[in-house]
């Protein structure tokens, strides 16, 4: 009794204040009392939640209870459920028909919806615990008051405010309805479902069809089995006859013998199925022609015993394999001719088809296709995560977010994606090369290839666009003490390639026009081998390298974007050569040591504090970090070798950049020693 009185008091206060988050404030003050209010509130709510037509006042009170419950839960354990509880305790905002009638299907912050007014159930809501992430896979943000914590009123999942910003009409049981529903806040998925729900009545006949079919199929199966049995017995009878006839075949008695054998065979056949009496059949049951003595002779179907005529449409002669001599089973080498009417023939054919269908068909195509699909599923799962990470990486670089992004995770995702794309491409190429027995097959293979090309074009290009530089440090295995600084040094993190080019401009010899697309590859290799890398880590290095590689062995990544894409790759190739070429010309001529010096100078110019930092280190500290760095250099060299061998040229290039940074650090320390 007391808790609800308390709650009512607070409510009265609140209606007078009607301020933003008023209830929340009150509840936060009166924490102890509210703790016991929660169960009562929940009880009332569950009792009334399903009632659609609660009066406004009642709804408001219950809504308040609801808010109280939430606030209490917030006190005990979960940090805060800021926005949603604030929204639910917001009585002041008028919720009238006009705002609901708006065409706009975005949820406006501050609106109260059906769930807030307790017109729509909350039984299916996901409870919020600390550390929960937004349920939208592409987002995955850890939910906090900053991101907003909202349950989609329709599917009940928890998500951040940005992804739960649609409005749909829901019934009291939180089902999507077109009419008579209450506007509620919902996620994009549910909104799409609601919009899709408008589209179209359908009707399913599958069950009725299956019932009807079962009857038809049962009789057909029975019939088929019976005919099969009969065929088997006929084959046995014929086989026995032939074996009996073969050894003794005196030519003299041929006529008598054959007639004797024919009669015996006939008797055997009649044992399988009783023959219809000739006299009873005046005409063929299929074509309806009257039987005559010579022109239209009577035949017996050996499988059903009916009398039929011998014309092509009415009966045929089936070749039935005889039992293999000595052994078990039937051999197709020796056959007996057995007459069958067209009905029985069809049954035989269908039965055979059914058996043939049961045999599994697993051509190469299916296997490759399954591989493609598996990779596609992987991409579908990984890509949104990766894209979200990439967006955060970018905003991190631009200094908009302070939190360091999850570099290793992004790198892992990217590697997975690249591998998946590569595999898809390979598989689709293999499919295109599969031998096609028919033009239809060829069309199918071509279509699969085209679809994969289309898919790669859609998903792979944005992938290669990513800023690569920030994930470089991830390549360096266990992080040593000095590594953090390495990451932060401007040369290491993200030098803009254009600025590098212009900065170097004056010192460069004139552009060498003679080199062609191949120079890209050369320059990439050069840079990987550590002679002339400029370490600019250009974002398009990936596709360019892949495109350059096209001439040679197949690259796993950029090779498979269909004809259109190859055109693109080659055009890119010619383009990318411009900045690269300069780097190359700079390269072999300059002595490695001089290059090293230059880099050190650059690094120092960019980060003047570095030398002091190193100088400030104690002797033993320097030696220790020297050891660590040398060890690291060895490892990175190893990684580069691996990447080279596996032809992951873009990876190699970014590894090379980290190597350069390492070298700078190393030589600085060495010099100071």
């Amino acid at each position, binding site marked *: 009794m007391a808790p609800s009185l308390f709650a009512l008091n607070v409510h009265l206060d609140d209606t007078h204040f009607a301020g933003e988050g008023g209830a929340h404030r009150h509840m936060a003050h009166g924490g102890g009392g509210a703790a016991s209010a929660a169960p009562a509130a929940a009880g009332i709510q569950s009792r009334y939640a399903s009632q659609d037509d609660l009066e406004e006042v009642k709804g408001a009170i219950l809504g308040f209870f609801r808010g109280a419950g939430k606030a209490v839960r917030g006190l005990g354990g979960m940090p805060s459920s800021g926005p949603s509880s604030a929204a639910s305790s917001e009585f002041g905002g008028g919720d009238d028909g006009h705002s609901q*009638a708006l*065409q706009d299907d975005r949820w406006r912050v501050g609106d109260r919806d059906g769930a807030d007014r307790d017109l729509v159930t909350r039984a299916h809501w996901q409870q919020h615990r600390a550390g929960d992430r937004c349920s939208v896979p592409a987002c995955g943000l850890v939910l906090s008051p900053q991101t907003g914590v909202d349950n989609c009123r329709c599917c009940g999942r928890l998500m951040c405010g940005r992804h739960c910003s649609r409005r749909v009409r829901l019934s009291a049981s939180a089902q999507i309805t*077109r*009419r*008579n529903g209450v506007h509620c806040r919902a996620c994009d998925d549910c909104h799409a479902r609601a919009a899709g729900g*408008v*589209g*179209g*009545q*359908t*009707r*399913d*006949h*599958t069950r*009725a*069809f*299956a019932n*009807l*079919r079962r*009857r*038809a*199929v049962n009789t*057909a199966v029975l019939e088929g089995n019976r005919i099969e049995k009969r065929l088997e017995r006929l084959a046995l009878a014929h086989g026995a006859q032939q074996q009996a006839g073969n050894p003794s075949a005196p030519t003299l008695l041929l006529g008598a013998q054959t007639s004797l054998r024919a009669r015996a065979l006939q008797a055997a056949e009649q044992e399988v199925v009783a023959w219809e009496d000739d006299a009873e059949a005046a005409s063929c049951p299929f074509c309806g022609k009257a039987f005559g003595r010579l022109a239209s002779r009577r035949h017996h179907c050996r499988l059903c015993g009916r009398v039929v005529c011998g014309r092509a449409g009415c009966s045929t002669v089936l070749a039935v394999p005889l039992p293999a001599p000595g052994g078990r089973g039937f051999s197709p080498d020796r056959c007996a001719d057995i007459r069958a009417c067209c009905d029985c023939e069809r049954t035989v054919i*269908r039965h055979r*088809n*059914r058996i043939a*269908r049961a045999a599994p*068909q697993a*051509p190469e195509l*299916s296997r490759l*296709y399954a591989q493609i699909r598996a990779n596609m599923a992987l991409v579908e799962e990984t890509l949104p995560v990766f894209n979200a990470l990439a967006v955060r990486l970018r905003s991190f670089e631009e200094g908009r977010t302070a939190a360091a992004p999850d570099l290793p995770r992004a790198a892992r995702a990217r590697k997975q994606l690249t591998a998946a794309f590569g595999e898809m491409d390979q598989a689709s190429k293999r499919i295109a090369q599969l031998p096609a*027995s028919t*033009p*239809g*097959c060829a*069309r*199918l293979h071509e*279509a*699969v290839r*085209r*679809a994969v090309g*289309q*898919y790669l*074009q859609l998903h792979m*290009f*944005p992938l*290669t*666009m990513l800023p690569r530089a920030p994930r470089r440090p991830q390549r360096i295995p266990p992080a040593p003490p000095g590594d953090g600084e390495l990451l932060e040094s401007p040369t290491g993190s993200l030098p*803009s*390639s*254009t600025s590098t080019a212009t900065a170097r401009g004056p010192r460069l010899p004139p552009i060498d026009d003679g080199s062609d697309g191949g120079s890209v590859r050369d320059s990439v290799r050069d840079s990987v081998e550590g002679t002339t890398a400029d370490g600019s880590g*250009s*974002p*398009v290095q990936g*596709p360019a390298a892949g495109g350059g590689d096209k001439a040679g062995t197949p690259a796993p990544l950029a090779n498979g974007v269909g004809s259109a894409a190859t055109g*693109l790759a080659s055009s890119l190739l010619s*383009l*990318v050569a*411009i*900045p690269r070429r300069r780097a190359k010309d700079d390269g072999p001529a300059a002595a490695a040591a001089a290059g090293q010096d230059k880099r050190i100078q650059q690094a120092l110019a960019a980060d003047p504090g570095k030398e002091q930092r190193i100088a400030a280190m104690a002797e033993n500290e320097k030696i220790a970090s020297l050891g660590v760095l040398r060890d690291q250099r060895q490892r990175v060299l190893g990684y580069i070798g691996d990447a080279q061998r596996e032809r992951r040229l873009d990876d190699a290039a970014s590894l090379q950049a980290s190597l350069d940074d390492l070298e700078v650090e190393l030589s600085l320390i060495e010099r100071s020693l």
Partner: protein
Amino acid sequence: MDAIKAAQYYTNRIATDTSGMKVLLLDRETTPIISLVSTQSHLLSKEVYLVDRLDNAQRDRMQHLKCVCFLRPTDASIQALVDELRAPKYGDYYIYFSNILKKSMIELLAENDESEVVREIHEFYADFYAATPTLFHMGLAPATRPLFAEGHSWNPGALGRTVQGLSALLLALKRRPTIRYERNSAMALKLGEELEYLMGHEASLFGAQPGAADATQLLILDRKNDPVTPLLTHWTYHAMLHELLGVANGRVDLSHVPDVRPEVREVMLAQDQDSFFRQAQFLNFGDLGVSLKEFVDSYQSKTASHHKIDSIADMKRFVEAYPEFRKLSGNVSKHVTLIGELSRIVSARHLMAVSELEQSLACNEQHSTDLKALRALIADARITAENKVRCVVLYALRYERVQANATGELKQLLSSGGVDADLVGMVDVALRYGGARERQSDIFQNENIFSRGKNIFKGLQGTENVYTQHTPALAEMLEQLVRGRQGPQLQERLPSLDPRARPLAAGSDGGGGGGPLTNQDIVVFVVGGVTMDEERAVAALNAKYSPQNVRLLLGGTSIHSSGSFLGELSTTFFP
């Protein structure tokens, strides 16, 4: 209330409800239905790798494929499917019918599916041709499905198809409307009755009664009450394409155009993929030129920026924009070709001169001036025979009841001018079809003194553009309806099938009549075909009244140009 979205919902589900390598089998009529709302690449992305016709006997056996069929429940399709099921070429069958199946059809299929390959059978009601978001039609063509049996009565085949198509549309939109029809039209009444019967019969699909919840109206109109609109030359882009080049299921065949480049021999028009077309479809010819120029300019500046790639940032931008860019370049050449061809035709046939006279005939009551101009036009050798006949037909319709009617003389002039006798005969055909005796609305506003006065008043207001004075009668009627301005005569003109139905004027919130409509969905169906000009007018009304939550959808038995309209009439209305 978007015809294309309604159909796309079904095609998407057909493509996505089953996973795995798929072949899509269609029949003669579902092929255009699908191709209007879906594209090859969209199907490819949904694992539909082959699309074929069910009646193509040369298909290969491919057991590793799943087969998705989308068929109309016609006898021919069912028979073809039975043959397919007896000797199945693919692994599993998922069958979707575009309309209500008869029980006997299901039985027949079940009996013949002895190898148990059919996994699912559904009814997916995409049984209409969704030409634009606001326009659907039934694809009736005089050659395959003549509309008229004898005079103003339905050919049974056409009636059946129309009832099926309209009911499918209503199912796709999940509506059970109140039906209204034009009082003087037996065909509209017949269609309404058939539809009402079907909705009652299939109550499980349509919902029980046209309830208060469903504020949908279906207005069934008859072309004969407005034979003028299809006879005029229209000057908006999409309408011109229909009238002058002919659009068949979203495709324009340009192979007859002199020195056309091979890649634009046949072009596709799709609003959802072609932003220029979406923006320009309702522009008139003059504005179209300006807008095309802007389009080409923007393309050229983009090309220039693409040619200048010096830095990595440029390259990055290029790669990001590249697919878009390629699409754009194809689009530019398409529209340049189309508009170039339109303007060639306009000048070759002197359509400006023709159109001026047409508009005058359609909008203003000036008998002697019109007659003089018409005589001059007939004497002009540069004008094509079809256009001359069109003008004479308009004259005959407008001045049918005028004392000094000179139709006979004009026909004489045409014949002596060497116009084919069949074409000259079209004048009488049109009069028999939509003469004053047949019409119930006063489209020329010359039948009584009041409407004459209104007409003169309108004339005094002046016009912005001589070539676009005419407003389709349908648009005027709908506008009055939506604004709640219609007098009792409109109520009289459009009676409801259900006598208990509340009057049209009342909004759904029971305004008690007279006020503007709110929260109302109106499907307008024109027996005898619609024109693109009416589509434009309805789309404009949709945009104008969407704040009132009034949504309009236009449909017809077919989409008419002046040629196809007269062609259809000539099948039955020869005197």
